[in-house]
């Protein structure tokens, strides 16, 4: 399945959590082709905007040909997308980039801060389908901004909030590592993470202190993005061995040991 530019019809719009919008598009080729963690470039027609907006697929369902996107309204482009009604056609470019490597049998811990949770419904579903044990650690500013645990059927969900309105108080990283990691220390775990850069760097710090190998952690990176297909070189992220990789081609899902965390830029708009 190659990358396509195609019109996709909005079939559902909802508010999955406070401040966010979930658009469900009907586009069977994309729903079949996309792997968890991959993204699409959505064209927007808001006045004075220009570039496509990159969004990870939140989930997809090959049988119904549907694909979901969850995003916050942060500017003119996302506001325009959030106002698309059912029946509206969106111009979709994708699927793009590399998704998460979901292979293996070790327990999986998904760590999400803020809108970083948007990539995980499909990831968790795919992990569960592979028979893996899954714990979701989700942090948000306040309880209303948490994606309901029902979206992660089969997984154990733990939450944190900055204002103590639900779960543990503080950053989601304070939930990490969860207690069950002790049981599995022999075999280790796989960690999947997405969220604001300070959250990711805090997670990496904890992992280093706990002597969890960074190669066991995969992060879904967010950088500003131009083309999404490797031509503009705008989405550079610092590579551990020096220089840069492209988030759109070498990511967005990258093993944490490939990233130069001391040179990472805080560019999360979520």
């Amino acid at each position, binding site marked *: 399945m*190659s*990358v*396509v*530019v195609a019109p996709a019809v909005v079939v559902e719009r909802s508010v999955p959590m406070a401040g966010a919008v979930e658009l469900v598009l009907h586009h069977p080729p994309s729903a079949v082709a996309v792997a968890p963690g991959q993204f699409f470039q959505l*064209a927007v027609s808001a006045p*004075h*905007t*220009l*570039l*496509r907006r990159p969004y990870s697929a939140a989930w997809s369902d090959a049988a119904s040909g549907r694909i979901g996107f969850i995003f916050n309204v942060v500017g003119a482009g996302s506001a325009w997308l959030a106002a698309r009604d059912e029946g509206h056609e969106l111009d979709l*470019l994708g699927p793009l980039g590399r998704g998460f490597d979901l292979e293996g049998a070790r327990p999986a811990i998904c760590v999400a801060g803020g809108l970083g949770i948007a990539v995980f419904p499909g990831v968790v579903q795919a992990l569960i389908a592979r028979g893996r044990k899954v714990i979701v650690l989700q942090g948000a500013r306040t309880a209303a901004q948490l994606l309901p645990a029902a979206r992660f059927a089969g997984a154990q969900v733990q939450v944190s909030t900055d204002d103590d309105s639900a779960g543990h108080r503080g950053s989601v990283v304070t939930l990490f590592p969860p207690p069950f990691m002790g049981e599995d220390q022999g075999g280790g775990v796989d960690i999947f993470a997405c969220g604001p850069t300070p959250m990711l760097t805090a997670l990496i710090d904890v992992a280093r202190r706990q002597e969890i190998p960074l190669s066991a952690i995969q992060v879904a990176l967010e*950088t*500003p*993005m*131009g*083309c*999404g*297909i*490797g*031509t*503009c*070189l*705008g*989405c*550079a*992220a*610092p590579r551990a061995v*020096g*220089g*840069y990789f492209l988030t759109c081609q070498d990511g967005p899902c990258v093993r944490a040991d490939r990233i130069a965390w001391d*040179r990472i*830029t805080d*560019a999360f708009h979520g």
Partner: protein
Amino acid sequence: MADRPDLTVDLGRGLHLRSPVLVASGTFGYGFDAPQVDRGALGAIVSKGTTLRPREGNAPIRIAETPSGMLNAIGLQNPGVDHVARVYAPQWATWDLPVIVNVAGDSVDEYVAVATRLNVTGVAGLELNISCPNVESGLQFGVDPALAAEVTQAVRAVTELPLIVKLTPNVTDIVAVARAVENAGADAVSAINTYVGMAIDVRRRRPLISRGSGGLSGPAIKPLALHAVWQVAAEVHIPVIGVGGIMTADDALEFLLAGAAAVQLGTVNYVRPQAAAEIHDGIAAYLVQHGLPDIRALPIRPLSVLSHV
């Protein structure tokens, strides 16, 4: 009138293109990405700016959207000319689409060294980038007619390839630079590269892109680019390739009417990969509709370039 008007372009020194629609340097890599673009619509690919040594490029953040535009400060990230000549050029040689290599450097010697190493099969021409705003000294050659002429002449001396010079608009008198490079042996000029600009993140109180300033492209600069082409085309006798904010066939036609012999698509490649085909077909349809035989009939005032081709 033929149903299939003549869209071919002669950029001089044997560089005949099947289409007046090119893709601009830095927006198409080295031609190996962007399979969504219909190559049949293109006359040529202009590669990413290529330097003597590999360059890692600038630290992120490298791009930002601005009203109807985009700022970039990529910093000439490229694998270096030896890789381009050894690995890419042999593949280009098998294509039916010419690849023009955009050449950048910090000194006359570097431009000459890069150009010399590009005397290989598969390279259809050179575009001298004397107008990159995103590296130290990137603009040095482009803002000074004497230096622009010096580097053009030095490269002219070491290559038989068609030589295009890409002009910067960040000057007081772009015509002076255009005349200087024409006299120094350029076969054509591209007008224009990006305008230096910036944007500031008011919440974080810092420039949106890490380098502070960057090059502005996209529809925001189209009227400025068009005026530069209008000025340059009237004053030089070599073809002018119009570039700057073209999104539609009408945009491209404006440049051709202003006197451009061809156009380059830049930022639009990021947004609408289908634009190249639409613009190519739109130009053809316009010629048919107006009973014009070819694109050389488009300029709306007499141009010296007409006698050149």
